[in-house]
């Protein structure tokens, strides 16, 4: 039986005098994942931020301003880890652990166990991404929005993300993932955002 997790209707995004997308409808059921693709600047990140509630939908040319309805909480991972650069990784993660009330983070699985005493600013790009993943998992949210999660990760890291998303969806969660690289997601659903013709709305 379908169990809608996300229903978004008539989403439009206008940046300056340019439409990034217009009249976009999106629906996800519990347990589904969606791979969002598109060229640089097409509006993938804007769409994710809109779905996260951080960016209000732009009023469309006609009709009602778009609506977004989620079931359950939302977690987002983007290029910013949101961890204190000056603190050792363990303390930086503890801050979010206290806020989210998270118990155990899968630190060994993420390859972070040996790094807990290292200040976040000394971590590599890929290690920071893994640390941000730990934060994301600790939030224990039902819906994941992952913006370019594969950036900076090694081959094992990519497989790890695919495993984590598959596990998350198997437990009834949803995930929307943007990435330029191919990524194996459960269900293999994907949505391509194309650049609209200059000046026109799609």
């Amino acid at each position, binding site marked *: 039986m379908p169990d809608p997790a996300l229903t978004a209707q008539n989403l439009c995004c206008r940046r300056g005098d340019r439409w990034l997308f217009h009249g976009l409808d999106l629906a996800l059921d519990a347990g589904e994942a969606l791979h969002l693709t598109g060229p640089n600047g097409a509006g993938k990140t804007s769409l994710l*931020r809109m779905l*996260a*509630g*951080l*960016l209000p939908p732009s009023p469309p040319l006609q009709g009602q301003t778009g609506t977004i309805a989620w079931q359950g*909480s*939302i*977690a*987002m991972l*983007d290029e*910013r*880890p*949101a*961890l*204190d*650069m*000056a603190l050792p990784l363990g303390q930086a993660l503890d*801050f*979010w652990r*206290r*806020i*989210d*009330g998270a118990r155990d983070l899968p630190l060994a699985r993420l390859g972070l166990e040996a790094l807990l005493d290292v200040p976040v*600013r000394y971590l590599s790009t890929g290690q920071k991404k893994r640390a941000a993943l730990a*934060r994301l998992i600790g*939030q224990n*949210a039902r819906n994941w929005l992952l913006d370019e999660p594969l950036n900076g990760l090694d081959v094992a890291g990519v497989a790890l993300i695919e495993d984590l998303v598959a596990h998350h969806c198997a437990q009834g969660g949803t995930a929307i993932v943007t990435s330029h690289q191919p990524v194996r997601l459960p269900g293999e659903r994907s949505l391509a955002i194309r650049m609209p013709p200059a000046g026109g709305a799609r």
Partner: protein
Amino acid sequence: MTRALLAILRRDLARLLRGSHHGAPGSGVALPILFFLAVAIIFPFAVGPDPRLLARVGGGVIWVAALLAAILPLDRLVEPDIEAGFFDQWALRGIAEEWVIAMRILAHWLSFAPALMLAAMPAGGLLGLGGAQMGMVEWGLLAGTPGLAALGVMVAAITAGLKGGAALAGLLVIPLAVPILIFGAGALAGGGASGLALCGAVSLVLVALAPFAGAGAIRAGR
């Protein structure tokens, strides 16, 4: 919610007391206080050692130094957390920006005001302030510094992300701090208790408004 706000307050305070990213522990609070004391020490050299003159202007000097000390950390009050994605992550967890800003005002105040009020005592001694005048300075700082903290955080939120935001923030805070300065320093020049009351009133208005103005600025900047 309360648990989250306490965690945020704790982090804010630790961050402000720690100072810059690479600073030694405590440098965050020590720097503005040393700056404040340095102003009090250097002032008699500039205007001459006449005790009557010093006693008359000393209170005002302490107030100006307090204002400058409150402005020093403006550039790291809000902007680094926006850039690092903290505000977005709090928003995703349903923690309103208003609460975050309110916590930050409290943390900013705690990080400079108590130490400043302590440092005002030796500074007052250096400037030859009498006991009654010193009392007025302390009560005035207690009434006025919350407003200065609120003003600092509000302006830091508004200017976050702007080019040259830190310099602009200083320029914006100074005129807005004038009422606090007038009433706070005015209490010394004979305004007495009514000056203190007005200083406290301006301060309260700022503390009440700043969380909403700052939160609005952060949302508008997304």
